[in-house]
């Protein structure tokens, strides 16, 4: 366990503005990479569209848009897709691409609580706005105090919404990263033990052959499956909260 540490996001570079030092962390840097990749992808998918799709590219783009539109239609009813689908699609693709970035050896963007907290607070204010829009401000306050005994708990659960959304995403992604790095450290130790059995003295530069292939199986679960499911759950929960406020 000597070679195993868990760090927060590193500071990639920093610069000074006046007296204030701006630190660009790994999370911020990686999210810039995600933004560039996603923007280029979306610009490419959205260019040169025809009325009737003839290219595979346009079919894929329409499939993605239809997926999000259908999700909004199924949950909130027909006619609201223009209000909600763009924001939800943006959040979905940001979390998805940010967590899939860990497949390429970068630190996953959602394994930083400041990123997930930002998304959760934005979503929280969106939910709040929709509740007030559909019920009126008085109706919203009335809903908070509907069983009068439970008013403090209702107010508490309002503020528990962003915390639980942020912590769910953060815990899943960072937990996967920690378990993956634990597995790597354990496999390095195991291959050193195998080298010791056959009489080779393993120094720091030996090739730990057990690390080949075995972590990929876990990576399918922790990087691919967990990232996709958690980003889907995030937008589904947003939809569920909006739907709750609408009724």
């Amino acid at each position: 366990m000597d070679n195993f540490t868990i760090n927060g996001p590193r500071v990639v570079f920093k610069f000074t503005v006046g007296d204030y030092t701006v630190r660009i962390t790994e999370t911020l840097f990686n999210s810039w990479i995600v933004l560039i990749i996603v923007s280029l992808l979306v610009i490419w998918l959205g260019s040169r569209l025809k009325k009737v799709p003839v290219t595979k590219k346009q079919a894929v783009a329409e499939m993605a848009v239809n997926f999000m539109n259908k999700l909004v239609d199924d949950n909130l009813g027909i006619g609201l897709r223009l209000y909600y689908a763009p924001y939800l699609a943006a959040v979905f693709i940001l979390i998805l691409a940010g967590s899939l970035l860990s497949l390429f050896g970068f630190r996953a963007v959602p394994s930083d609580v400041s990123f997930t907290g930002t998304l959760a607070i934005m979503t929280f204010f969106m939910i709040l706005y929709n509740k007030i829009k559909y019920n009126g401000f008085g109706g919203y306050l009335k809903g908070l105090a509907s069983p009068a005994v439970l008013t403090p708990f209702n107010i508490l659960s309002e503020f528990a919404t962003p915390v639980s959304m942020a912590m769910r995403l953060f815990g899943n992604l960072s937990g996967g990263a920690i378990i993956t790095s634990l597995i790597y450290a354990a496999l390095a130790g195991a291959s050193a033990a195998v080298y010791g059995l056959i009489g080779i003295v393993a120094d720091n530069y030996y090739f730990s052959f057990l690390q080949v292939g075995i972590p990929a199986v876990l990576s399918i679960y922790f990087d691919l499956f967990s990232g996709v499911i958690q980003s889907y759950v995030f937008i589904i929960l947003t939809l569920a909260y909006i739907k709750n406020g609408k009724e």
Partner: protein
Amino acid sequence: MDYSNEALLNAQAIVLAGQAIGAGLALIAGIGPGIGEGYAVGKAIETIGRQPEIKSTATSTMFIGCAIAETTGIYGFIVGLILLFANPFLKYLGQ
């Protein structure tokens, strides 16, 4: 607070041991989501066996339910992480 060197080391050892035990206890929170998710998945499989035509709806609903049920386990996990890696109680020794 003022400690001699040896007393400080002993106090640190006690704090670190307490943090390790606390982290282990916090991860007991994983039992609840484990049981709950297993129950949910079992029920979903029963439903799919009875009505195979709603397989996709049942599966996606089950995943969402599982992710929500996981929340309490994740809270325990985060508390365990903070105890293990952030050492929040060492500062009370007055260093």
